[in-house]
Structures are given as C-alpha cells and as structure tokens.
C-alpha cells in the first residue's frame, strides 16, 4: 500500500515536472516575456515576471483540480477575460512570427511596405472570429 502510494506520488511529480518544464520552454521559445519587458522597459523586474508565470500556472492547477468558488460579482470577469485574451493574442502572434509566415508572404506578393495592413487582417480576423464563435457559433 505504502509502496503504491509512493509510486503514484513519484509518477505525479514526474508528470508535473515534464508538463511544467515543457510549458516554460514553450514560453521561452516564443519570447513573450522578453517582448513585454522590452515594451515596458522593465528588464530589472524579469524575476517577478517569472514568478508571475509560475504562480499563475499553480493557480490554474488549483482551480482546475479543486472546486474553488469565490462568489464574486461577474464584473470581475471583464479584466480577467481581457488579460487572458491579451496573453493568448501575444502567444498567437509569437507563433506566427516563429513560423515566418508574414515575411515570406509579403515578399511573394511584393507588399513589403504594406505589411501592417496584412497584420491588421490577422488581428481583425482573430477578434471577429472569436466574437463570432462565442456569440453565434456555440449557440447553433
């Protein structure tokens, strides 16, 4: 009995370690945090940002594995929704950049100067696609 509990604990730890390191590696490759520090000029605070990611991940684990209920007003969802959206948007943008989609496309079509407009297509597509999904598509 004790042995099996120890084995399960060990496997749990190992699984968590693999997922956690993978998550951090993914964020590092995408370079979202350096980008934010670069925009805000807060390079010195980077350790706090690391902890923010770790604490956020642990909070996510807590609320998804346990039934935490806070009984707050629904307005609290607006900033949380905005923050999660911005984070996903940055990750999506970083992925697009890693895959080198836009430079190649702009070069092929010969619109090097108008790349911002192509970017707008992606951004508006993301916003409207998401709104369409939540307001209309899921109710079908």
């Amino acid at each position, binding site marked *: 009995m004790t042995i099996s509990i120890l084995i399960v604990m060990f496997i749990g730890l190992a699984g968590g370690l693999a997922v956690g390191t993978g998550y951090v590696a993914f964020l590092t490759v995408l370079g979202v945090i350096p980008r934010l520090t670069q925009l805000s000029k807060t390079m010195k605070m980077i350790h706090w940002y690391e902890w923010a990611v770790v604490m956020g991940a642990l909070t996510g684990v807590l609320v998804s594995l346990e039934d935490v209920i*806070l009984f707050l007003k629904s307005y609290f969802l607006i900033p949380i929704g905005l923050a999660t*959206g911005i984070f996903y*948007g*940055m990750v999506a943008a970083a992925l697009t950049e890693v895959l080198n989609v*836009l430079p190649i496309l702009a070069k092929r079509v010969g619109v090097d100067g108008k790349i911002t407009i192509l970017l707008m297509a992606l951004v508006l597509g993301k916003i409207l696609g998401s709104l369409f999904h939540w307001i209309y598509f899921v109710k079908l």
Partner: protein
Amino acid sequence: MWEVNVLEKTIYIRMRHRVIVHQDILVKFQDIAQVIADEEIYQKIIAIPIHKITKQDNNIIIIDVMKVIKLINTLYPDADIQIIGPTQTIIEVVSKKRGVSIPLFILIWLLLFFGAAMAIMNFHEDVSMKAVHQHIYTIITGTYNPHPLIFQIPYSIGLGLGMVLFFNHIFKKRINEEPSPLEVEMFNYQQNLDHYVIMNENKESMLKIDDH
C-alpha cells in the same frame, strides 16, 4: 604618367551590400562601392563600367570584389587595394516599377482574415475553451452560465490587442522606437536570401573539381 607608378597608392574599397537598378543601365563602379583614394585616381576609377544590364541577365547579379580588383589592376597595377566590409555586391534588377496589384492584395488580405478567424475557432474547439470559460464563470460568481459573454467579449478583444502589442503596432502608430519582431524577422529573412544568392549565383564562390 611615370610618377603614378612609383608612388605607393592605397585605394580603399567598400562594396555596397545591395544595389537596386533598372533595366538597360550601365552599372559603374561608383554604383556598387564606396571608394577612398587620391582625387585623381578616385575620379578615374569610380567611372569604370562594371556591368551592362541586359535582357539576358537574371534579376540578380553578383559582382565579386575580385572582378573589381582585376579592373582596377589593369589601370593601376601598383595600387595597394584595401577591401573593407562585404566582398560582393548584389545587384537587383527591377523591371519598370512593379506596382502592387490591388485585387491580389485584397485576396491575400481576405485569405489572412478568414484564415485567422477559422483558426481561432478551431483552436477554441480543440482546447475545450468553452468549458473552461464556463468553469471560470462558475469559479468567480458561483452560478452556471452556458454563455459567459461578460468574460468572452473582453477575451476576444484582448486577443487582438495582444497580437498588436507583440508586433508593436497600434495600426501604424508605434508604442516605442525599437523595431518590431516582425521587422527584425523580415530583415533576417532578407539576409538569409542574400546569403543564399551570394553563395549560389556567384560562380566563383563554389568550385567543383572533377579529377576524372
């Protein structure tokens, strides 16, 4: 002219990295390089014709510094030629101001727009985003809402905002002076292309020796 050959003359040459020219132009030395030399020599060598662009040329021509040195050597055999910087110039021939075709541009724009929209919907379905949003709504308020739009609409706007933030563009207007990752990426891509053509279009840079 005899003293010209006696004096030690140094000619400094720095090849330009990339030159964009139009069809049917005679490319002179001054077009493809920066030169520092004695005034008399300078005037003479900057006018050296290097290459006449013809219809037969591809749209990329590589001028190696070796060719340039050879030409200068025929004029000034004793000159001490110092090369600084890149050792070749990429000449890009553009034919008559290629404009952007508007219909094609609109097509690409719509392609990206609908592609992005479709991709985000697929992503939401793929990672059970709906269930997660409903769960978050329940965590905060304690009640169940099948369509927690109060969370989802800010989320959707934030999605676009995050992308804009990452690329450092608020639709043309910049947040700060640094180049955006996209511009850096464009630059890297161009550099890689240049490196490729330098190695592949330049016949002298690769040599196959057949010994049978």
